[in-house]
């Protein structure tokens, strides 16, 4: 009941938390996609010495515990750490950085798998039609578009519901670094279960609608 009232009344703090969650996750996903798709495409079609090792690192990255990522980012950004001069610790920037580290292997790994699933002859055939290397890579990515969309969905899924890393590097500071997941933890610890449920519903709702949008994109690419 209380959960429903909180949602309907659009509590200002709740709105701030939602917007920050979207900003942090959206920005992290943007950079993960920007780096991860070209990286996955490159790994998917190039053969070079050390490729297996890079892929092994990538697969390991796909299974990294977020709390460990948070710990490493924390140590890097702490005052005595190598990146301490940036003063990013306990800011949204630190949370974005941690989420990039978590989602990048997902996006790159699934993109690589999708590109490897495309007939290798396609690349040579579009090159034979006069495509540049970049145009050929793009053509292969378009062919692998369903898998590439899945990679973005996987990257999003890995960070929207993530709590360990953002808690460590963000600190769950009110009006500054508090996001949906860390707020749920706090409300639960304080015994405010209605608020925790309301936040949980919002989180699930966001995940549902984002995935629904992706599904629509996938459907469109199948039909077009």
């Amino acid at each position, binding site marked *: 009941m209380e959960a429903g009232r909180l949602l309907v009344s659009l509590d200002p703090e709740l709105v701030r938390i939602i917007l920050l969650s979207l900003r942090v996750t959206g920005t992290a996903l943007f950079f993960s996609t920007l780096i991860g798709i070209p990286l996955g495409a490159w790994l998917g079609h190039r053969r070079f010495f050390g490729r297996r090792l890079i892929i092994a690192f990538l697969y390991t990255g796909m299974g990294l515990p977020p709390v460990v990522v948070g710990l490493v980012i924390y140590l890097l950004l702490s005052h005595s750490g190598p990146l301490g001069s940036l003063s990013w610790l306990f800011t949204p920037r630190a949370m974005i950085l941690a989420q990039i580290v978590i989602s990048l292997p997902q996006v790159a790994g699934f993109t690589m798998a999708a590109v490897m699933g495309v007939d290798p002859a396609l690349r040579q055939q579009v090159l034979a*039609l006069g495509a540049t290397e970049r145009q050929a890579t793009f053509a292969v990515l378009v062919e692998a578009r369903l898998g590439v969309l899945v990679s973005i969905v996987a990257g999003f899924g890995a960070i929207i519901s993530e709590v360990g890393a953002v808690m460590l590097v963000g600190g769950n500071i009110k009006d500054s670094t508090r996001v949906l997941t860390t707020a749920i933890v706090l409300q639960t610890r304080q015994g405010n279960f209605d608020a925790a449920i309301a936040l949980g519903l919002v989180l699930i709702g966001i995940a549902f609608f984002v995935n629904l949008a992706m599904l629509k994109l996938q459907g469109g690419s199948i039909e077009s």
Partner: protein
Amino acid sequence: MSDSPITGFAYQADHLTKVYNSRAVLGVDSLEIRRGEIFGLVGPSGSGKSTLLRLLGFLEPPTSGEILFGERLRVIDSDVVPIDVRRRVTMVFQHPVLLSRTVFANVAYGLRIRNHSDVTQRVEAVLKEVRLDHLTGARARTLSGGERQRVALARAIVLEPDVLLLDEPTANLDPFNVGLIERIVTGLNQDRGMTIVLVTHNVFQARRLAHRAGLLLDGRLIEAANAATFFSEPSDARTAAFVRGDMVC
């Protein structure tokens, strides 16, 4: 077919080799392809025909040797072939892989990456030429083998290249599609003066279409001559055996 109608060279290859994983698959001492001719390259499976075609299409660099293209460009490493030169050559593969889009989008692909303005007109004209104008909006995956090969041919010829490389373009096709593709190839050469290199293991097809022909055996060019000589009075016993249809070792 009579002798090549136009003088000048499209390609001159010299001491061309290709090695994959320490295995030499090609070793052509000398090959000349004249501008405006149909050159038929015959030979059994695994003789290096497709490899040679990929080198001529600048899709792979030779391991050693050089290719003189259009009497100007020397190619040792295909990575340095300028894109505008590479775009003067297109290739149709034995097993065409089409983009998972419509027939129109497949044929328009090469024009779009070149930022052509008259894409629709040119695509429609070519689709009519290959008799696929009724399938413009069809999905590529729904096509038959013959239709797929005609789409592959259409997306290459719509670009109006100087040189068209054809790798077994009618293998496993029915007589209707074979006849249609052969008529189109002949028309491209006669009407537009397009240089065509036709790789085929079908001696009869090479005899029907080529002005000149060459036999590739174990990666080596055994003989290259005008069609009349090559098919009727070959100078090499292996060419004579291959043309007769005898087993060649």
